[in-house]
């Protein structure tokens, strides 16, 4: 065994299949990738294809079967004020919530990595903890906390002798949702950043120290560049997450049915079109349009992120 380990590199070094840390040029790879791809085809590719197919048809009234309508559903979606209202809402959410959440995560990661913190390991695990809380439970919990039935919002109002704190009112609903999402995902993003920081070789810090760089200088010159890839990935995931916003508003809807409409977010719109309105073709179109916009934005972020230094 040991002998062959030693010998092998010699005989295979020049082999055409070697690349990076070593790969085999071999169709046997399909053996391993095949099963994944088969399930992937069923659960990802087939639904996408089916959705595109659906989006090109329209049910005729009174169950007259469906007819091919070309791009009519798309034109309708793009002129649908409900769709744009929902889109605008998640757009605002994206522009405000994502930077706040990522900035908090970044600061937490830098603080934990800085070695200036007491009990850093404790902070790391506790801040990450909300990620292990199911989104549904998080929303139920915060929903009760927000409520004026029992919960902390009511307690605070009693304490201050006002009724000013109304997290579930139409003015505050979006920030309230943003708070839940932030609470859930700061820890997760913090961990992604923290993991990236751990991969910075110690020599870089030593070199920076020799050059007389202080804390802020080290963060700017060493840590932030090392975090670039992680920040791009976290941003893309957060964008996708914002555009998919569903669980939070859909569960809070029972608590504030008059504030959260059936088309509060594009995803809720698609869901309600299907399951309350039986408009499957139009629902599929809304889903595709949203997926397309998300993919484009994620792609642009990726391009910019890999080109620009932070």
């Amino acid at each position, binding site marked *: 065994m040991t002998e062959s380990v030693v010998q092998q590199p010699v005989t295979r070094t020049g082999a055409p299949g070697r690349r990076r840390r070593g790969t085999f040029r071999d169709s046997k790879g399909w053996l391993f990738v095949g099963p994944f791809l088969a399930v992937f085809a069923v659960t990802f590719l087939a639904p996408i294809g089916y959705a595109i197919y659906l989006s090109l048809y329209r049910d005729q009234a009174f169950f007259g079967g469906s007819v091919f309508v070309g791009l009519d559903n798309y034109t309708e979606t793009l002129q649908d004020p409900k769709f744009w209202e929902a889109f605008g809402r998640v757009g605002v959410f994206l522009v405000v919530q994502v930077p706040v959440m990522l900035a908090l995560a970044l600061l937490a990661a830098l603080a934990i990595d800085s070695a200036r913190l007491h009990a850093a390991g404790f*902070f790391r695990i506790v801040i990450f903890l909300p990620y292990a809380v199911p989104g549904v439970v998080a929303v139920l919990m915060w929903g009760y906390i927000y409520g004026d039935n029992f919960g902390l919002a009511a307690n605070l109002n009693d304490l201050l002798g006002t009724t000013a704190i109304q997290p579930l009112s139409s003015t505050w609903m979006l920030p309230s949702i943003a708070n839940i999402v932030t609470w859930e995902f700061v820890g997760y993003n913090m961990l992604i950043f923290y993991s990236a920081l751990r991969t910075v070789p110690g020599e870089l810090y030593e070199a920076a120290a020799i050059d007389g760089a202080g804390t802020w200088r080290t963060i700017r010159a060493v840590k932030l560049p090392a975090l670039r890839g992680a920040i791009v990935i976290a941003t893309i995931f957060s964008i996708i997450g914002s555009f998919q916003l569903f669980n939070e508003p859909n569960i809070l809807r029972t608590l504030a049915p008059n504030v959260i409409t059936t088309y509060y977010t594009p995803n809720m719109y698609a869901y309600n079109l299907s399951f309350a309105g039986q408009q499957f073709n139009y629902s599929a179109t809304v889903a595709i349009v949203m997926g397309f916009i998300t993919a484009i934005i994620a792609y642009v972020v990726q391009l910019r992120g890999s080109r620009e230094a932070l």
Partner: protein
Amino acid sequence: MSTTIRTPRVASTTLGAEKTRTSPLRPKRSPLLTGVMVLYLIYTLVPLVWLLLSATKTQDDLLSTPGLWFGKSFAFFTNIKDTLTYNDGIFLRWLGNTVLYVVVGAGGATLLATAAGYGLAKYKFAGRRAVFAILLGAVAVPGTALAVPTFLMFSNLGLTNTVWAIIIPSLVSPFGLYLMWVYATDAVPVELLEAARIDGAGEIRTFFTVALRLLAPGIVTTLLFAVVSTWNNYFLPLIMLSKPNLYPLTVGLTQWSNQATGVGARPIYNLVITGSLLTIVPLVIAFLLLQRFWQSGLSAGSVK
């Protein structure tokens, strides 16, 4: 062995004055920074503390006593008993369903992602680039955009309202594949695989006897994240299932919560709260116990 340990130590002491070395690299602990972080810690913990305290209250106490302190009576164990027995013990049924979906779904997803990540990292087969392109494109498509078409497709196949409607979509984890691919690239030396080949082991056997062990930390990470996403799955079961006895915990709990509103409202806040607590506990324990594994696995994944 002793030389490899000693060399870095020598190198670091030659770095110059002890003072410049220690101040930026081993800085003093800062009470100010710790204080700021404690504020954030409180924000993180308040809802969880609230949940824990609320789980000890009767429904009356929930409505009449302050949220961040105990109520008049201590009903924690009664609440747990009531949660587990309400409606002929449907909660236990939901728990069982969740465990089934997690074991088969997340377990299968991890197995598929591990094999595929290993295959992509260690074999350069025709069509490999196409696989990457398709995966990258698919990851950008929002998962929920697929939900409605998947529902319609499964509905045509007669799969809705069966456990397969939840398990099959859970089997694919593009994030897990990405993680395993990155991990396998570095963790499995090709020389070892070549050695196994020379010894006459087939590809599958090599994977199970040689590669799997080296991939273990990555596998634990992938498994843990697959478990979380399956355990937390809400949207998919919400649309796929209409029979309450197939529900996972997440959908069941929201159904209980919805009882509080509408016609014939029958609020069971205390059960929703205690049920929520019971839903969180297993995952929190898993994360705490497996900390060492998933944190090292994540570090490897973020190298890219």
